[in-house]
């Protein structure tokens, strides 16, 4: 059987033109997807059933036993952390928020170590953005800043920018200029019309300098800024002002470096300044396929996109205090539920040392690094492969993923609902 127009649950591009050939309960071929997506569809070695750590050994348990363990753990905790959420569908994320409200815990998603700083910046200055198709059809200038789509979002270039057809571009490949700004000469830099190489930690200064130049204050700028000559900065500023439609895509090269959200704020303010001259937009290159969905769900249900602390009943938000890395490193939680992410692979070691000390339950289809710190792991279906559900693309477009095969695994939502029901009973509701 061939499933057409399947939705790839890997990165924030959420490509929805994938063809998946299925033989029984196995994917045998994937067409249109990039290497990352293909591997995800072809994934193997799932965890077969829920497991419980019993001293220095693992034992198999039932889904009911696992759900009871999780519910009990969350109900008895004084400050449980409910973390992850970017690797699951929106319907499951909604249950997660209700759980956090009920047990008065902290709910955070992977954006705190991804584009959380971008959100902090947007909260200061807003966000002039657009959907990907607007860029595809119009942009004659695309800037990748601190992002390397060839490795992280391989089809971004072919579907939306460098190699994409555009309604308003006669010859898109020739008429569309690409600028890459990075500290490394990445593979993406090799396909750029202009590469701006910045000294590490210098993004903020370069962005400030560009803003000043766009405002006609070139004389204030020193001869070089973070390794970039003033001449090149002026050239880039002129390319931007001369474009009919410019689009900036930024990545973790801005969010993870010195200054964090201030870098993004500066980039957004550059785009707002350019909007006085021509059309310009800016967007984040989001990693997990549904990290934006967890921001959206959290926002409509709690008012905040990530890092929400319900300890006091009402929602409190303060990234840096209510975000997972900070809480774990400061040992400020006493239980953790992990869904749709693998913090043990992606968090600094100090966080892992605390995970080793507290009870942890994880929902994940595969054994992963976090498994080692779990008291219970519950295998679930993979959204977009053996479960359906809603995901939000990096530009905010919601797409319903398709189920391409049946595996018999329950979805995240089903498992979470089972836990939530037990928790409501535990709370006498």
């Amino acid at each position, binding site marked *: 059987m061939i499933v057409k127009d399947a939705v790839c649950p890997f990165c924030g591009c959420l490509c929805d033109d994938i063809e998946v050939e299925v033989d029984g309960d196995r994917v045998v071929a994937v067409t249109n997807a990039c290497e990352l997506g293909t591997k995800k569809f072809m994934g193997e070695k799932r965890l077969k059933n829920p497991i419980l750590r019993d001293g220095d050994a693992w034992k198999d348990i039932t889904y009911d036993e696992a759900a009871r363990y999780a519910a009990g753990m969350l109900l008895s905790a004084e400050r449980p952390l409910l973390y992850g959420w970017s690797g699951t569908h929106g319907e499951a994320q909604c249950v997660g928020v209700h759980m956090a409200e009920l047990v008065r815990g902290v709910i955070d998603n992977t954006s705190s170590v991804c584009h959380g700083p971008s959100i902090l910046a947007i909260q200061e200055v807003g966000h002039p953005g657009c959907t990907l198709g607007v860029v595809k059809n119009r942009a004659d200038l695309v800037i990748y800043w601190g992002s390397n789509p060839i490795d992280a979002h391989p089809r971004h270039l072919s579907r939306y920018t460098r190699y994409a057809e555009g309604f308003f571009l006669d010859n898109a490949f020739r008429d569309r200029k690409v600028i890459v700004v990075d500290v490394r000469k990445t593979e993406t830099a090799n396909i750029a019309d202009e590469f701006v190489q910045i000294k590490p930690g210098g993004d903020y200064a370069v962005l400030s300098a560009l803003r000043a130049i766009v405002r006609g204050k070139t004389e204030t700028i020193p001869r070089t800024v973070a390794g970039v000559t003033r001449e090149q900065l002026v050239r880039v500023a002129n390319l931007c002002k001369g474009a009919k439609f410019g689009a900036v895509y930024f990545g973790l090269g801005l969010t993870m470096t010195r200054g964090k959200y201030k870098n993004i704020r500066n980039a957004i303010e550059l785009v707002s300044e350019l909007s006085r001259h021509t059309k310009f937009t800016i967007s984040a290159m989001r990693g997990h396929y549904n990290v934006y969905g967890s921001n959206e769900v959290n926002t409509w249900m709690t008012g905040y996109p990530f890092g929400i602390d*319900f300890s006091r009943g009402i929602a409190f938000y303060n990234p840096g205090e209510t975000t997972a890395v900070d809480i774990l490193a400061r040992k400020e939680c006493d239980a953790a539920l992990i869904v749709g992410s693998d913090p043990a692979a992606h968090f600094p070691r100090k966080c892992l040392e605390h995970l080793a000390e507290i009870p942890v339950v994880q929902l994940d289809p595969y054994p992963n690094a976090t498994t080692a710190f779990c008291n219970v792991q519950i295998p679930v279906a993979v959204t977009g492969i053996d479960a359906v559900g809603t995901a939000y693309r990096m530009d905010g477009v919601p797409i319903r993923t398709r189920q391409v095969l049946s595996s018999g695994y329950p979805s995240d939502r089903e498992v979470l609902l089972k836990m939530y029901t037990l928790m409501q009973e535990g709370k006498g509701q």
Partner: protein
Amino acid sequence: MTELLVKNACVIDPLRSINAETMDIAIRDGRIVEEVSGAAEVIDVHGMLTMPGGVDSHTHICGTKVNFGRYMSPEDMRAGRTPRRGPLHATSGYSVPTTYGNSYRYSVMGYTTLLEGAMAPLEARHTHEEFIYTPLQDTMANTLFDGNWGIMEAIRDGDTKRVAAIIAWTLRAVKGFGVKLTNPGGTEAWQWGKNVSCIRDPVPYFEVTPAEIIRKVIEANELLHLPHSVHLHANNLGTPGNYTCTLGSMGLVPDLNKKRQTLYATHVQFHAYGGSGWPDFCSKSEPIANFVNMRPQIVMDMGQVMFGRTTTMTADGPMEFNLYRLHHEKWSNHDVELETGSGIIPVIYRRKNLVNSIMWAIGLELALLTESPWQCLLTTDNPNGAPFVRYPEIIALLMSKKYRDAEFATVHPDTAARVPLPAIERELDWYEIAVMTRAGQAKALGIQEIGKGHLGPGAYADVAVYPIRIDEVDPSVDHQKVIEAFGQTEYTIKRGRVVARRGECLIDGSNATFWVKPKVSEAYDMGKDPDFIEKFDRYYTVRMRNYPVQEEYLNRNRCIETEAEI
């Protein structure tokens, strides 16, 4: 079977011409019935003012743009926070509250039906997801067609039936209710950083004018026999002197429908400005209201501004950018491929500001100068003019000259020379308020026939009982009592269940979504049109098969089928 009897209600039900009659309301299984058995639960309301549940025919509560307003405003979320209590979820926010916050607060004010004013088709799934978490109201979504490429091309080709066919396909795909035009043509121009100045400016590349878009989409809307008329946010919102553009747009509208208006002009306060710039900015509510008084084919809503902090959000991207350049506050914009766009900025309307004072006056003037309350409905374009929790104050202002004068004394002193408000003596009565807050809204939306906005047998049992006796309170004097009464119902009954009582919501609820499926002939099924399919595949970034919103996204699915003429 569940039965409820609301006894001794002082009922105002304008769609049935009932004005303050004391009667009992019988409810069975969520519907109004003639009578119930002796086993029915009885609520005696002792002569309190009782109306059909409130209907808001233009509010922004769910979807991409609203959620972005929340997302970018953690400072707004610090207000209005409540913890989870019993069946109720936590809430946050003042001007852009969480979905639960919106739903609970509307319910406490007696509202049971809401129309989300602007849904981008490509992002419709998001609106529907949020509807599910707006549990205490039934919902429907106006669908944006202002910058739709296919429609502009069909208009350029003079093919009105194709315009209708694209609307039909899209409404059905995205589970939309009505046709919304926001700054028609302007949102497409904005994707080049440009705008259209008024209805005769051609849209770049597509070479059609806003006037053509408005007229052809109106014709298409009527070909499809949609319950609601075209819902227009006119060009040129918020600029001095824009009233001529508004009159020009209204002048395009023929009278095509016997049951309802042919055009719903929204938040007209923002479109009734005189002057050649900010220095001579003034009210032009009189020419607008006079024009509407002579044209039954037009219904408008106020778009009232109230002083204080709020968040503006609209599909009108270029207008928001102009606001940003005025305020230099934070600014968000979100253009949607082949369809439309949106913009968001926070604002504070201040009494000390002359322009803001004039805006405040204009909304009230429109309501007071429009002779028929059926033609000017009460809204703030929530949250653009003010959050909807300010409605009770607006009702009191409309009912009391004394209250208006007292408020007027606190606004910018130069306002008097720029607006007619101080000379207007009219005070609206309870019946007129009932029209403007439910009956007129239901009629304008075309949902009275499916049982909304009235209390006749067969209607949805959505009832608002306000803790006030209208034979004892003189609204022109006791405006404070009016504000209190409309701020908190004694009972809000939704689908036959008491969902809110004296300011407290009681149950979690479950909403229904109304949407429209026009039935068109095979020849006009765009799902099978090769040109439509080819353009979709080439220029959208979502596959056509993945575009339609599945019925799984409708909590309670209420499809309204229409027989189209194509």
